[in-house]
């Protein structure tokens, strides 16, 4: 008797975890794909946390004003492009360090978002729709676990597209060359600085879209505690995924599952240690970084111009 209920409880916990992973992973996916593009060009943007929050605010505001969540997603992306251009432009000045600029933009972006987002805390904006992948099941838990947001398939398709583009397309090869050896790229006549600024802007666009997911789908509102380091964890995730878009997608799902642990346990009535379970993604990030990073060696697959992976 008790074995059956235990089995049931475990089954529904697993379902809640799966549903949570599918839900929570989307911002990780978009931010990490964006950071992947930026890092492939040889620069790191630690400011994507600020971009994510600014995108969440901008997307929510525009969705509220226009009534269209899709315009909101676009606006969030454009906020990200502006932040990316700022980062890319500043880092192109001589003697300006990309890590320091990232930290500054993390603080600047969140400050800007909190300021401009003050009037957005109360009203309810139109949300992004979801896709019912679980319509075949008559079990409500299965249906709710497989009720995924529209941005998730878009992000997964984008991961496949980037995987192809980095390997086979003209601009993907140019991007990688710029990131691996700027001198060689310059000798071949590629404009190194514009390509890097473009890659940072493109990365910002995707991070902004990731932010729109936070405010327009899950949790689905604008408030100042919306993001708690997802943007930064996504940067670490790219390193763990060794700069491969497909591995980024897998890692994002894993991070999503870790992020869903707290809420999933809570839905099962386990509320003790809520804060600790919510810290699971941070612990996971640290553990994965410890496991994947070897001291004294440059990481396999790391773009050669990326300063911070070199020891």
């Amino acid at each position, binding site marked *: 008797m008790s074995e059956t209920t235990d089995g049931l409880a475990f089954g529904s916990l697993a379902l809640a975890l799966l549903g949570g992973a599918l839900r929570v992973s989307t911002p990780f996916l978009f931010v990490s794909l964006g950071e992947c593009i930026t890092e492939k060009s040889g620069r790191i943007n630690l400011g994507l946390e600020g971009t994510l929050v600014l995108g969440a605010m901008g997307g929510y505001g525009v969705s509220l004003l226009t009534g269209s969540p899709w315009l909101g997603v676009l606006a969030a992306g454009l906020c990200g492009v502006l932040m990316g251009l700022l980062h890319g432009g500043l880092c192109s000045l001589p003697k300006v*360090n990309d890590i320091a600029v990232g930290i*500054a933009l993390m603080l600047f972006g969140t400050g800007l978002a909190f300021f401009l987002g003050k009037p957005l805390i109360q009203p309810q904006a139109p949300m992004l729709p979801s896709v019912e992948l679980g319509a075949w099941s008559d079990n409500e838990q299965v249906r709710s676990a497989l009720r995924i947001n529209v941005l998730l398939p878009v992000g997964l398709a984008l991961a496949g597209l980037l995987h192809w583009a980095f390997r086979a397309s003209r601009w993907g090869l140019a991007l990688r060359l710029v990131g691996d050896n700027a001198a060689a790229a310059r000798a071949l006549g590629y404009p190194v600085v514009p390509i890097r600024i473009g890659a940072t802007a493109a990365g910002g666009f995707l991070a902004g879209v990731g932010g729109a997911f936070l405010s327009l789908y899950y949790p689905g509102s604008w408030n100042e505690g919306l993001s708690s380091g997802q943007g930064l964890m996504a940067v670490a995730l790219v390193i763990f995924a060794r700069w491969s878009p497909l591995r980024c997608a897998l890692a994002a799902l894993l991070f999503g599952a870790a992020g869903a642990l707290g809420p999933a346990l809570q839905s099962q009535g386990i509320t003790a240690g809520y804060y600790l379970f919510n810290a699971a993604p941070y612990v996971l990030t640290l553990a994965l970084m410890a496991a994947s990073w070897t001291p004294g060696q440059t990481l396999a697959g790391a773009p050669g111009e990326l300063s911070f992976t070199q020891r």
Partner: protein
Amino acid sequence: MDAAMNRAMRAVAPLAPFTAAALAAALLFAAFLAAQGFEAPEALGLVVEGAFGSAFAWQNTLARAAPLMLTALCVALPARAGLVIIGGEGALALGALAAAMVPSLTAGWPALPVQLLMALAGFVAGGAWIAASAWLRHVRGINETISSLLLSYIGIALFNFLVEGVLRDPASLNKPSTPPLPDAVLIGPLPGLEVHWGLVWGVLACAAAWFLLRRTVFGFSVGVVGGNPRAALMAGLPVGALLIAACFLGGGAAGVAGMLEVAAVHGSANASLLAGYGYAGILVSFAARHNPLGIVAGAILVGGIGASGSLLQRRLDLPDAAVLVLQGALFVALLAFETLNRKGARRV
């Protein structure tokens, strides 16, 4: 005569990019406000008035500068060793929590030993947390910037878990807190002022850090590690121990900031402690180019911006995040003007 002029020029020269950056940030902020229909010139005037315009403003500014000096040291000391640490907020939280635990364990003791023990507890808790980043960097090669912020989030989660759990005072209903400190243990204001003694602690800590970095063998060794880790290894310096020590001292300073917030401001450990001093300290340290003496001035400036927030809110109905925008603009402008500096590129 010429030599004296040269020396004076060299002393003032580093201030030129800073002044330019501060002006650029003020212009940016004004343009941002004007674009939204706020009275930009009045706002800038209010920032100055709210920060330095009266005795009351000065006291508010200095009370905020005290923890900023200590959290800025959490960036500056590791920076000397070549590490970019941004996890001061977590060190402050855990330092506050450790310090808040001390009085219940030392009931009946006289005040001074309890206060010193609280400072020590805060120092060790904050120091251990930041030292962990240095350790991870040294043994596993993990990027310390990312790990310190992740550890900071974990520290804050731990803080919330304990304050709302086993360490919670059952009498704190709406706002979970640890039990209030006994009155005797509270740290009071400086004579004749409303600013608490923490300001003196902060200035002394900055002076001590300057002495340690610029006048001791330890500080010199840390500087060598920060300048060229390989050369430091070749010279036989204990690189790992120096990295960990620099981070421990820096994190310890942030932990003491948390202790001061408990003992001089809030009277117990609760979520209001986490007011962003750890993050603003990053700006302070970068503005001072990680020079401990410059941090005293930088903390007063950034503390002043923070102090002007309530005046901006009252007079112009600006959101409280206005000060965050101004601080962010200042940070961005400072880094942009770094390009004008005549010295070579800095890694940190």
